[in-house]
């Protein structure tokens, strides 16, 4: 009841044309308010981007995170460490929001325990991996290229196997990183009948 008593006059005020503030002020105010809101939204996005957030779910922590620790993206001679969001959330803003919407499904899966044991995780792994492969394929391995660029690769310093593959299929655009480098960060699921494997 009290709320209604409070809202009614407020609504009347909002509904009436402004007498105290100029239109210019209101437009500016709306603009600044929008910036503040957008900034806050981005900061929230930034916060959920941190690896700590990802591994707060044991589904992520006890499987993929542990496995990452055996790979070159965890420890290498260059001392650069790739974190989950480096490979899994596009840095581009619009893509990023699209990806976050998909992430709501993960919260759903978490609530209902779709992969909350090792066995369930392994049983679903092929499907989850396929989602990721499809995403990398569609964006031409964008996340890999955020760190590795073909232009900066010195083929003369690569091994022969790497050089032949990169010169023969990568620079020609015939294949993208994920076509050849599946399982670079985690253990692979059952690979039977995966295309091109």
């Amino acid at each position, binding site marked *: 009841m009290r709320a209604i008593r409070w809202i009614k006059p407020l609504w009347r005020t909002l509904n009436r044309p402004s007498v105290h503030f100029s239109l210019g002020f209101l437009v500016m105010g709306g603009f600044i308010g929008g910036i503040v809101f957008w900034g806050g939204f981005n900061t929230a996005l930034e916060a959920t981007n941190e690896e700590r957030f990802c591994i707060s779910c044991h589904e992520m922590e006890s499987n993929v995170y542990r496995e990452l620790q*055996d*790979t070159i993206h965890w420890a290498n001679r260059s001392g650069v460490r790739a974190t989950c969001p480096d490979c899994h959330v596009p840095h581009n803003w619009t893509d990023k929001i699209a990806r976050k919407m998909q992430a709501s499904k993960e919260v759903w899966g978490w609530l209902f325990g779709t992969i909350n044991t090792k066995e369930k995780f392994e049983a679903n792994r092929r499907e989850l991996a396929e989602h990721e492969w499809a995403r990398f394929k569609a964006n031409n391995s964008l996340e890999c290229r955020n760190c590795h660029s073909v232009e900066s690769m010195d083929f003369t310093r690569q091994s022969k*196997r790497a050089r032949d*593959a990169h010169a023969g*299929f990568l620079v020609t655009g015939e294949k993208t990183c994920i076509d050849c480098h599946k*399982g670079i960060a985690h253990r*692979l699921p059952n690979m039977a009948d995966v295309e091109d494997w």
Partner: protein
Amino acid sequence: MKKWLILLALPVVTALVWAENIATLRNAPLDENPEPPYIPQVLNEDIKRERAYPMQPPTIPHKIDNYQVDLNNNQCMHCHSRHRTEISQAPMVSVTHYMDREGNFLAEVSPRRYFCNQCHVPQTNAKPLVENNFKDIRQIIQDKRKEQ
């Protein structure tokens, strides 16, 4: 009494002499912790090596770090299986790898050849600890011919 002492000392002396030998592998007296040796690097030069005899599993001329070989995936076969060699330009595993022990040819790599690293290993640039005096069969035959 003196003789007894000498007899008692004998095993100690032999042990010391032995310790000296061990120290040549260890590079430090037994009661000291030596500087840890530098960790050898895996050779990744992509140059096939000579085989010491025809039945020898060839050593691997490239690195195999983190290549997953388990129930889910055989990373080696990603390049070395029959249907991948055109793309990878790797040598196909030889036909023996497709045979079961009765000598029948299978469509897939034989289960007894599935775990490649049982037989094939990469090499490192470590210095050999002992000299290798293996003699190639060709060398032996040549030596014999010269003798005659």
